[in-house]
């Protein structure tokens, strides 16, 4: 009996490819905001289409492939059994890649449902639902067949990811198809907006936060080679996180046509969310604090340390920006873009990079090809993220003041065009930041490729059940 790790290796490989595709698209649209004629008049290269490709490739290609791969890897080791239904696991891995690739092509062709982070049209929505439910079947059946009684905390987070994303995706995608490439949402007006941001914010919550917390709770103790600082706190944080996140979506709709009490509820629950978010951050920081010796030899741990700092920043900044009197200035500015990227680059990408540097050498039973290259990647990623966030803070605050500036007779002082033109220097700075971050990702791809090239996946057998009970908390 062996763990089914080849599917994990394939998913990690695809995730890296999507990271390169998605980040390249991001860099290109950043350049388009500086030099708008870079689309050469070709619709597929227009900002509107490439932006959707960028977000879909990084979230669903890079992010979900990484989550699916690490979930398959960790659920086997925390349950001490191989994956249930390995063929279905392969189906999930392959079908997901085909779906993202075909979906990306459809976005470039102009197919869009028009909902942010849910742009793909109805044929893709149905395909995503089928693959996602299959993912859930493999994951939960593996847990059901586990050889040890406790269910380790990472599996709670991965489980929440699977259940909540299925619920959000299916409800938000309910639509009336008109043609193969066009459908209309089942919801209308303000209701449609509420459903969309219930989906949109919880996709951030349960995929980009909850899913990656599953990754953190498994791989951080593994890398630190010590148990999580407080297991009890991790369980408490899980339930507090799951309960409070689901209410926070309406903060995307402040000062809109939705009822004011819904906006206030969204704001209050966003502030409450700070507690479980920081509980996890403290748990991570304290776990890694006791493993400082590992930093001498392990380049991956640095990424995890930094990812925790940016997780702390992003989960603090989000609740602050949900306060209505802050949001009135920050909304519709690049501050929001900076906030998203402090989370996406600083938290999601960094923790994934750290995990891949740890995981890939173990999958093939060989050391990482170049620790030096990984260290260079670390500094490129840190510099890129900091520069990105600072550029967008400067741009966002200036925009916020300019949008709202009134002249003596109460008319808007500046036109949209003038304000956007004045943002070009910030966008140039952001382009540099994106290039730095992308260059680091290219180094990682090469480093991982050289590490795995010509090597088979190591066959690992589950430990005996007698070893398992103590291992759950200590070594899971």
């Amino acid at each position, binding site marked *: 009996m062996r763990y089914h790790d080849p599917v994990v290796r394939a998913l990690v490989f695809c995730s890296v490819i999507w990271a390169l595709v998605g980040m390249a698209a991001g860099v290109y649209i950043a350049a388009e905001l500086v030099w708008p004629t870079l689309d050469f008049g070709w619709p597929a290269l227009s900002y509107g289409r490439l932006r959707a490709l960028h977000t879909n490739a990084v979230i669903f290609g890079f992010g979900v492939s990484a989550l699916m791969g690490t979930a398959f890897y960790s659920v086997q080791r925390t349950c001490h059994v191989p994956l249930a239904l390995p063929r279905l696991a392969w189906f999930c891995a392959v079908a997901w890649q085909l779906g993202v690739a075909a979906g990306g092509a459809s976005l470039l062709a102009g197919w869009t449902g028009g909902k942010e982070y849910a742009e793909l049209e109805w044929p893709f929505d149905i395909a995503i639902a089928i693959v996602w439910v299959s993912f859930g079947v493999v994951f939960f059946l593996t847990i059901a067949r586990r050889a040890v009684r406790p269910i380790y905390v990472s599996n709670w987070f991965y489980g929440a990811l699977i259940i909540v994303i299925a619920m959000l995706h299916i409800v938000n995608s309910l639509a009336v198809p008109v043609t193969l490439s066009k459908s209309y949402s089942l919801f209308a007006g303000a209701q449609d907006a509420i459903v969309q941001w219930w989906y949109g914010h919880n996709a951030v919550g349960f995929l980009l936060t909850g899913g990656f917390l599953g990754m953190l709770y498994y791989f951080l103790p593994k890398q630190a080679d010590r148990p999580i600082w407080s297991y009890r706190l991790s369980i408490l944080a899980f339930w507090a996180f799951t309960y409070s996140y689901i209410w926070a979506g309406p903060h995307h709709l402040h000062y809109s046509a939705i009822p004011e009490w819904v906006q206030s509820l969204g704001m209050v629950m966003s502030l409450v969310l700070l507690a479980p978010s920081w509980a996890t951050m403290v748990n991570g920081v304290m776990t890694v604090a006791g493993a400082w010796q590992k*930093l001498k030899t392990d380049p991956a741990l640095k990424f995890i*340390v930094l990812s*925790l700092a940016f997780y702390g920043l992003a989960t603090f900044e989000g609740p602050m920006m949900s306060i209505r009197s802050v949001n*009135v*200035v920050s909304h519709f500015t690049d501050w929001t873009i900076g906030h998203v990227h402090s989370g996406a680059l600083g938290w999601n990408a960094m923790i994934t990079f750290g995990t891949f540097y740890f995981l890939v050498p173990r999958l093939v039973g060989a050391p990482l090809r170049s620790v030096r290259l990984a260290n260079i990647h670390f500094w490129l990623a840190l510099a890129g993220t900091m520069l990105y966030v600072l550029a967008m803070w400067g741009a966002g605050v200036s925009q916020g003041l300019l949008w709202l500036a009134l002249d003596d007779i109460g008319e808007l002082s500046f036109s949209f065009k003038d304000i956007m033109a004045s943002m070009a220097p910030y966008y140039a700075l952001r382009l540099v930041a994106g290039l730095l971050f992308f260059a680091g990702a290219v180094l990682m791809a090469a480093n991982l490729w050289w590490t795995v090239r010509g090597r088979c996946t190591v066959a690992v057998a589950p430990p005996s059940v007698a070893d398992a009970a103590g291992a759950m908390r200590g070594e899971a």
Partner: protein
Amino acid sequence: MRTLPSSWFPLGALFAPQCTFAELAAATPDPARILFKHILWLALAPAVFVFVGSSLFGWRLGAGEPLRLPQETLTLIAMGYFLALLVGLTSTAAVSRWMAATYGGRDALGAHLALVALVATPLVIASAVHLFPHVFVNVLALIPALLWSLYLLYAGLPTVLGTGPERGMLMASALVGCLLVGAVTLLCVSVALWASGIGPAIGV
């Protein structure tokens, strides 16, 4: 063992950082001396620069005419900036001392205040750019200063606080997290004040 670093040690950060780290590591600075002789002035300089710059030229946001505010408002903003920096610098030293227990660093408050002064110096010097209050020019000037400050934090902390390189890296990252949160807090409080009618007039 010397108990006092030289009076100009923050400037040493610019020319001979390694020597300055070693000097601070060997010293046990008096907290009150560091506070009144260094931190106070480091917090005051940017506030004075911003007051003079915005009084003379007004803030340029990138589009249209510079934003000019009444002298009373500018005085209030400069005082608020000074207090925010003073509280920020001293509380960072306090947080650093609190963290030192976890990361095996020195307990002496003076050493933490001196480290904060050292790290803040490049940013304070670069804040002279506030004399020309154009937002993008300021962002552009402050970024290299910030990178230099980050270098001083990561390179200096292990020596000055005696944590060793690995634990120093962890502690420096934890402090960066705190400082980023502090920066966001400052940004959000400013915006909330604007929305409530204090500062630049906006149509809210």
